[in-house]
């Protein structure tokens, strides 16, 4: 049958016939096929472990970003209380970027969760099939003559071979997706390393470009809304005292009024 049915089954059949050619002794063929199945099962287990590792890594990043959001929010309040609206705005812009990133991480973690579930299902299914093959192989070895056995082996091996190919395909797709996410996670980590999400007070020279990117990335209106909200809170007297907190020592109030932080800081 040509078309889409051809592809995988042809590959499977080619593998199986090769396998059957290998050994003239049916018992040996059966053992060889069984051994291959066990190998695949091990690979699936490894694949699942891989997905779990990636998921944990993303969750760790989420945790860091969450802390960053809290920190930037606090810094914005402190800046605003000290009358430095521009500094507060930059902090809120960064908070906005971090929040957007956090949302994207959330959906990636959910996707990985799904992959993990799917692969665990595949693993279970394969286990059942292998078990079935194992008992069939004992029956074949015990009951059939060599000629009959060849036919039975061919059937059993093709059936389980198809299953193996399918599990292999499912695993490949899950791992490809994981790989894409990992690449993205690495990119986020690089952004973090480049200072995109870092402490406002640690701003140094040469960060103008990041600042520009930040402005493009962040939703201005959300930042404005946050700023207004904060102003209202502070105006109402419920905000923190009008002084930059412990972590804000370097961004001393003398850093200039209204200047962009990236321009206002000396090396």
């Amino acid at each position, binding site marked *: *049958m*040509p*078309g*889409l*049915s051809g*592809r*995988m*089954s042809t590959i499977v059949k080619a593998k199986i016939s090769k396998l059957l050619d290998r050994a003239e002794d049916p018992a040996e063929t059966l053992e060889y096929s069984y051994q291959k199945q066990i190998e695949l099962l091990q690979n699936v287990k490894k694949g699942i472990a891989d997905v779990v590792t990636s998921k944990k890594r993303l969750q760790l990043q989420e945790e860091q970003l969450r802390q960053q959001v809290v920190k930037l929010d606090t810094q914005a309040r402190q800046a605003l209380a000290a009358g430095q609206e521009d500094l507060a705005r930059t902090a809120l812009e960064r908070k906005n970027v971090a929040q957007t990133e956090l949302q994207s991480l959330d959906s990636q973690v959910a996707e990985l969760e799904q992959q993990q579930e*799917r692969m665990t299902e*595949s693993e279970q*299914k394969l286990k*059942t*099939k292998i*078990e*079935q*093959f194992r008992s*069939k192989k004992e029956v074949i070895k015990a009951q059939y003559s060599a000629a009959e056995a060849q036919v039975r082996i061919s*059937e*059993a091996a*093709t*059936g*389980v071979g*198809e*299953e193996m190919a*399918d599990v292999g*395909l*499912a695993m490949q*797709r899950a791992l490809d997706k994981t790989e894409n996410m990992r690449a993205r996670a690495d990119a986020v980590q690089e952004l973090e390393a480049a200072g995109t999400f870092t402490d406002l007070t640690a701003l140094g020279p040469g960060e103008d470009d990041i600042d520009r990117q930040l402005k493009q990335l962040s939703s201005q209106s959300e930042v404005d809304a946050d700023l207004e909200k904060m102003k209202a809170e502070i105006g109402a007297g419920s905000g923190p005292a009008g002084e930059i907190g412990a972590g804000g020592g370097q961004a001393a109030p003398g850093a200039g009024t209204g200047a962009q932080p990236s321009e206002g800081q000396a090396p």
Partner: protein
Amino acid sequence: MIVRISTEAQYELDESDAEQLNELDNAAVGACESEDEQSFHQVFSQLLDFVRTKGTPVPEDELAISDVILPPPDTSLEEAKAEFTGEGLIPG
């Protein structure tokens, strides 16, 4: 007739369902050839749903050989173009 949806499961379908399956398959091939992403996804999910609803799942402890193997449900148009070509699933 045993149909496998790759990465999902095997289903046992009645021989009389083959004709309709073939029609859906031809439609999927058509959508692929005209590179119409939207209609491909629509036809392809119709094809999968047809197999899922008309078919009975093959028990997990059975080692059955499929007559037809469909690509995974999350197949993209790009991937499908490599699979759905020429006569498609069933010739004729």
